[in-house]
């Protein structure tokens, strides 16, 4: 089985977000970058499936060279090879076109990624890629098993879960508890250095959406503290002052 796992390179979940260049770019100074948490789940399940089936796992990132450490980490965790599409992507559509282009050249059975990136939170790349390739796409997938060319998928739906059986190839957006995150061991880190990481140029895409400016939310007002002995007054305040009841 040929598996492709797409990873994003995003600021750590605890990073303080600020902007620069007249609020037109993220200020990367002092920001620690990580593989997107949801993509980490996809990668972990991809590695498990590769080990079970004896197939291959390619990791793909659409981005610039500063993501190479994260790509190497994915190789250390268990990917066999990596592709980086050398671009500074502006939107989900651009990213999806690049992924679909790479996928068309390689005939992957399974394309995994996180349910969304934690920087732009769109949650649309898997659907775009699925449609561009003319194959099924499902998200958010919490459990995944592959048997005889078909996938059994457990995915979250509003207020519960749904179990689907779908033929491969598929594109899936993943989230926990699909697998436990994997931490690379020393052997993995050493072998990752020699695994192939190809850098390819992007295919051209019409501009669909262009970010213009970034801004932070208005600062939160002070928290109104209510003595525990008068807890019941909170309900009245929520009704008359906050007007949320």
């Amino acid at each position, binding site marked *: 089985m040929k598996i492709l796992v797409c990873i994003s390179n995003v600021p750590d979940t605890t990073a303080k977000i600020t902007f620069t260049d007249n609020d037109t770019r993220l200020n990367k100074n002092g920001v620690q970058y990580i593989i997107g948490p949801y993509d980490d789940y996809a990668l972990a399940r991809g590695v498990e499936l590769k080990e079970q089936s004896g197939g291959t796992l390619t990791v793909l990132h659409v981005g610039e060279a500063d993501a190479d450490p994260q790509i190497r980490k994915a190789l250390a965790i268990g990917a066999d090879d990596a592709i980086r599409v050398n671009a500074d992507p502006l939107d989900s559509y651009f990213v999806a076109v690049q992924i679909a282009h790479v996928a068309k050249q390689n005939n992957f059975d399974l394309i995994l990624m996180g349910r969304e990136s934690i920087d732009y939170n769109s949650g649309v790349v898997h659907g775009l890629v699925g*449609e561009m390739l003319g194959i099924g796409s499902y998200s958010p997938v919490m459990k995944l098993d592959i048997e005889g060319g078909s996938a059994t998928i457990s995915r979250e739906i509003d207020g519960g879960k749904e179990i689907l059986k779908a033929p491969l190839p598929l594109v899936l957006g993943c989230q926990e508890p699909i697998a436990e995150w994997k931490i690379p061991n020393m052997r993995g880190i050493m072998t990752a250095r020699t695994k192939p990481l190809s850098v390819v140029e992007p295919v051209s895409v019409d501009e669909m959406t262009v970010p213009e400016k970034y801004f932070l939310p208005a600062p939160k007002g002070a928290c109104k503290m209510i003595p525990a002995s008068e807890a019941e007054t909170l309900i009245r305040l929520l009704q008359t002052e906050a007007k949320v009841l």
Partner: protein
Amino acid sequence: MSVLIYVELDNGSIKKTSLEAVAYGAKVAEKTGDKAVVLAIGQAASSALELAGNYGASKVLHASDEKLTHENSLAYADALAQAAGQESSKIIILSKSGLGDAMAARAAAKLKAGVVSGVTALPEINGSFTVTRGIFTGKAFATTEMKSDVKILVVKKNVIEIDENDVASANAVVEPFTPQLRDADFQASVVNVEKASSELSLTEAQVIVSGGRGMKGPEHWQPLLDLAKALGAATGCSKPVSDLDWRPHHEHIGQTGIKVAPNLYIACGISGAIQHLAGVNGSKCIVVINKDPEAPFFKAADYGIIGDVFEILPKLTEAAKKL
């Protein structure tokens, strides 16, 4: 030309978040001088669909083919793209949800449309078409120019305030809509659906009462459930609670769980790790109850009570029953 709005159904009624999308779409249509047309897929009575007129829609296309009864984002996206073609829609609106994102994505690829998910305000339309969206899980916003001919917007909850009891009474015309269904969209088979029918959906709930490790174990959840019942609220939990199996996974709220945006979020015994805050920062009002005065959640709260949740929750429940 029309603005096309997709509405999600729940037991034959239009979901509140979708009614907000209709109101949003109607305001966009006002700006562009177009009509607001709604697409509903699934089983529903015409009378339930006509209500879309109260929020500004002039017409509802209703695709009620039995094959579409069960949620199928592939077929629904196909239907959406076909409806957009029929209605010459250059702007398509959906509400933010798993289904909304999935349909928007596949329809965008079909229609070569730009898609922006997580929209938080009405668009600015003056020569260009610019939308505002939440990014970094609510920690920031971006204004984005949409340059494509066809534009798909996935709108967050609470962007447009609607009062279901105070609307114009203008019923929309309901028309049957019969999309061409493709076999390729029905290759997946549904093995099982587990849905807690009695529970309120976290994404739709106006009030959420949520518990963390401060609740001390699954056997101590009753006071929280009592308050939720008194307030007509949905219940949620923090990641550690779901990891420990104290509560079901679908209640997990946070960066890697469900992101919620209720009017009122009451956090009981949750310290407020940044990953949890990322899942609740869309809430209008946050109440934090915690015995630790240093809990970081108080910094993000509107109201706070420092004390023992097991003493405070019954008091709140009694007061809530008197509402």
